[in-house]
């Protein structure tokens, strides 16, 4: 195996605490949004940059949660965009219903209240859908699991297309814009912290043991169906969170934007970053999103007639990574602030 994880005995000379890193990110994120809102120095605090950063935040949630399944648990799930759809539509319905209530509350508190309710609802419902699907699918493994999860992704999209109260195939319009860069940053940081805590707990040990040797894990007393489904439900909840943020940031969603092309995009970022590494998930998302945006700007500035050729880049990256560096940029490695704390 070409894989070389961080040697477990290596003692980092300096290991910043997770909460310090999180605070540092927030210290940068909050003024960025506020200054951009105030129109201060638009060359730096530019709404377009914030838009790109917002997308990066949402994608980190999606990719890191899928890494829980594909990287740590070692089961190949292909339906992540389906759970994102469930979350997006739940949040969209809740947000439009709650619109009158939010205007009755003071501005910041009202916004936070709406976000907590809509995102909480999105996570709950996607977790529920995830739980039911997981219950059915984890009787199978390998190729079968991949196909069935993808099948459920298609069915979710098809079901939404057939629901008139969700706008059917035309999509759901008029969702209030409740999220901004701060909200997305907080959610992304929460996702990373929660996933890290889980992975470095006894739950994480059991998930990884299933990946390493399923039969041995089962014969050590692990209830496979329940343990795998727990991971699946958690991943679905976070996909729902990303969907809820997405709906309230784009303000318009269609079923087609959650089909298997979206799932593949998530996979590209996941594999670019690397399996079983939260650092990799963050890095993969940033590298991919920035690359695509830079290409978009360069091409439209210098060769507008080639702008569309950008579409070939993402599948090509995926193929080249798989052929040359199967474990991605950071496979099985973590940045210091995400590693387990040393115990003396």
């Amino acid at each position, binding site marked *: 195996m070409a*894989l070389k*994880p961080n040697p*477990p*005995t290596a003692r980092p000379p300096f290991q910043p605490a997770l909460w310090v890193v999180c605070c540092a990110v927030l210290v940068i994120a909050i003024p960025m949004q506020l200054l951009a809102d105030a129109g201060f120095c638009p060359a730096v605090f530019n709404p377009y940059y914030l838009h790109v950063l917002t997308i990066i935040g949402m994608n980190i949630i999606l990719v890191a949660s899928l890494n829980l399944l594909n990287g740590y648990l070692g089961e190949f799930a292909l339906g992540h965009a389906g759970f994102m759809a469930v979350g997006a539509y739940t949040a969209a319905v809740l947000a439009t219903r709650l619109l009158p209530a939010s205007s009755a509350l003071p501005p910041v508190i009202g916004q936070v209240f709406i976000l907590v309710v809509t995102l909480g609802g999105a996570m709950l419902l996607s977790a529920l859908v995830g739980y039911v699907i997981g219950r059915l699918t984890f009787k199978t493994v390998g190729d079968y699991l991949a196909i069935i999860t993808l099948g459920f992704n298609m069915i979710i999209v098809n079901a939404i297309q057939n629901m008139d109260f969700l706008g059917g195939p035309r999509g759901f319009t008029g969702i209030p814009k409740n999220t901004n860069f701060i909200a997305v940053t907080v959610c992304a940081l929460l996702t990373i912290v*929660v996933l890290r*805590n*889980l992975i470095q*707990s*006894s*739950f994480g*040990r*059991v998930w*990884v*043991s299933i990946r*390493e*040797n399923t*039969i*041995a*894990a*089962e*014969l*050590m*007393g*692990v*209830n*496979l169906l329940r343990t795998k489904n*727990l991971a699946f439900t958690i991943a679905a909840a976070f996909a729902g969170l990303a969907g809820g943020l997405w709906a309230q940031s784009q303000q318009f969603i269609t079923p087609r934007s959650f089909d298997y092309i979206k799932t593949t995009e998530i996979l590209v970022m996941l594999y670019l970053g690397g399996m079983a590494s939260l650092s990799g998930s963050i890095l993969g998302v940033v590298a991919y999103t920035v690359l695509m945006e830079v290409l978009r700007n360069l091409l439209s500035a210098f060769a507008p007639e080639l702008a569309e050729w950008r579409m070939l880049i993402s599948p090509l990256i995926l193929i080249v990574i798989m052929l040359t560096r199967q474990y991605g940029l950071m496979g*099985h490695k973590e940045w210091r602030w995400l590693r387990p704390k040393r*115990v003396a």
Partner: protein
Amino acid sequence: MALRIQGLTKRFGGLTSLSEFNLELGERDIQGIIGPNGAGKTTTFNVITGVYQPDQGQILLEDRDLTGLPPDVIARAGIARTFQNVRLFKDMTVLDNIAMAFHARIGHTLWGAIFRTGNFKRQEARVRAESLEHLARFGLADRSQEWAGSLPYGEQRRLEIARALATDPRVLLLDEPAAGMNPSEVDELIRLIRQVHQDFPLAILLIEHQIPVVMELCGHVQVLDFGQTIANGAPREVVNNPLVIEAYLGEEEVAE
């Protein structure tokens, strides 16, 4: 009686891999199962541990009926095993290989793990301390932070036995523990199994290809051939049984 098995039968299609298998394993017994390749030895373990469902028969662990239960339930009930081809969690540390065994027993809550509650941290510290202590008994404490897959073969075997014992079993099944070992490693293994038998309150059932190991350790041996028990008794009597010699000789001819 630790483990009582009656009339255990397993068929694959038309082939009967195990036929009317009986076993009475006392509280502190060490018994052996021997037989030529393809005799149904590993199948026996797979049926006892629930990997395969038996077609007939009954499995009782300390009078609890385990027949037809799923493998994880059987494992938690008190049957632990090792594998013919070592099955460690290779990309996990030696310590985590042991620590994961505590998961089923310690009631961790998801809530506690996510928010790192005081209670959760105390439990984790306890798991860690107990795992290290357990490793120390097997002389693996100083390896605790290495990848399980990077250990030398003999230590991997030892770690696998240690891991099985971390589930606190009543019955330990060892599937060809001496496979691939040289004579000095085999001697060490025999000492280890004796030690385990002394230190832990359990009964041991082992499958072995190397007759000396069985002679040395077991008070009672069963010989399987084509899924049938062809001999049964003390090791010295069994190896001189003409049926057993014929079964092994038959194998040699096939091998040549």
